[in-house]
């Protein structure tokens, strides 16, 4: 059987049954930090739902912040 994966910021990772907040903690990103947003499969997941939104196999996750820009 093929291993289940998810893609986090373009990086393919083994899938674990976890919430958005748990994924962030695992990546070393404190979910309570200001200035961060998350999208799963092209849809923004509101900060208030990070602790309840369960990730699924093959999800495409984007975790972003503000950087210097013009």
């Amino acid at each position, binding site marked *: 059987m093929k291993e289940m994966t998810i893609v986090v*910021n373009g990086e393919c990772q083994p899938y674990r049954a976890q919430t958005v907040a748990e994924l962030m903690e695992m990546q*070393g990103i404190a979910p309570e930090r200001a*200035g961060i*947003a998350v999208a799963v499969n092209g849809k*923004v997941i509101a900060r208030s739902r990070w602790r309840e939104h369960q990730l699924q196999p093959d999800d495409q996750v984007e975790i972003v912040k*503000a950087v*210097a*820009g*013009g």
Partner: protein
Amino acid sequence: MTPSVESPSSLSVEASAKAAAKAAPLVIAGRTFRSRLFLGTARYPNQQVMLDALEASGAEVATVAIRRVSLGGQSETVFDLLKDRYFILPNTAGCYTARDAVLTAHLAREALGTNWIKLEVIGDDETLFPDVEQLLQAARELVEDGFVVLPYCNDDPVTCKKLEAIGCAAVMPLAAPIGSGMGVRNPYNLQIIREQCRVPVIVDAGVGVPSDVAVVMEMGCDGVLLNSAVAQAREPVKMARAMRLAVEAGRLAYEAGRMPRRLYASASSPLEGRIQL
């Protein structure tokens, strides 16, 4: 003794001169801004120079981009640095489709808690000219989603009118390609845009020196957004101040109204009472 109404004190003369010499504030979507200069935060030699340049520019609006966090630990973000002192305007730089731009705007709104967006949808990676078709589509969706949309666009009056009709809060035509420092390539188009649009016109991209800024402000454009012209100057902090002065000078000159042009001389000093030998 002469009544003070006929001979105002030097204090009230000073106050009235100050009031008369004050430029009108910029208002976008009902929000008043104290500065007509918007400054980008990228490409400075280092972070301290960026902060000093922002300070010297007098800008209230600072632009930022939205990018992936690096996995495995995080440092301070530009948002942490700026959020207490500036009105942060996120952009959708780097987006080539309406879909990417709309998602980026939504991520920016969630991350930074602002529904203002500098909408960029790029159509060509050498010139960074906008993709007008995708830009109009993204603008429509974002206005419908409740965003205050400030679109970076071509110096094309027709596109600007369409963006205004969609409900964009301002239009931001380019002076020249982003980061080119080429100055105002088509001043007459900008003038037509200023005359035909009722929303504020913020000239975005391509200016190189303060005289470029003064030119567009003198013709009545409402503000200027720049980044590289300051960040890539030999001394960015000095250039930031120079740009601030140019924005202020240009705006005041526009409000003051220029003198009419004449082909021939017209003496300033009176002709009567000259000595005769």
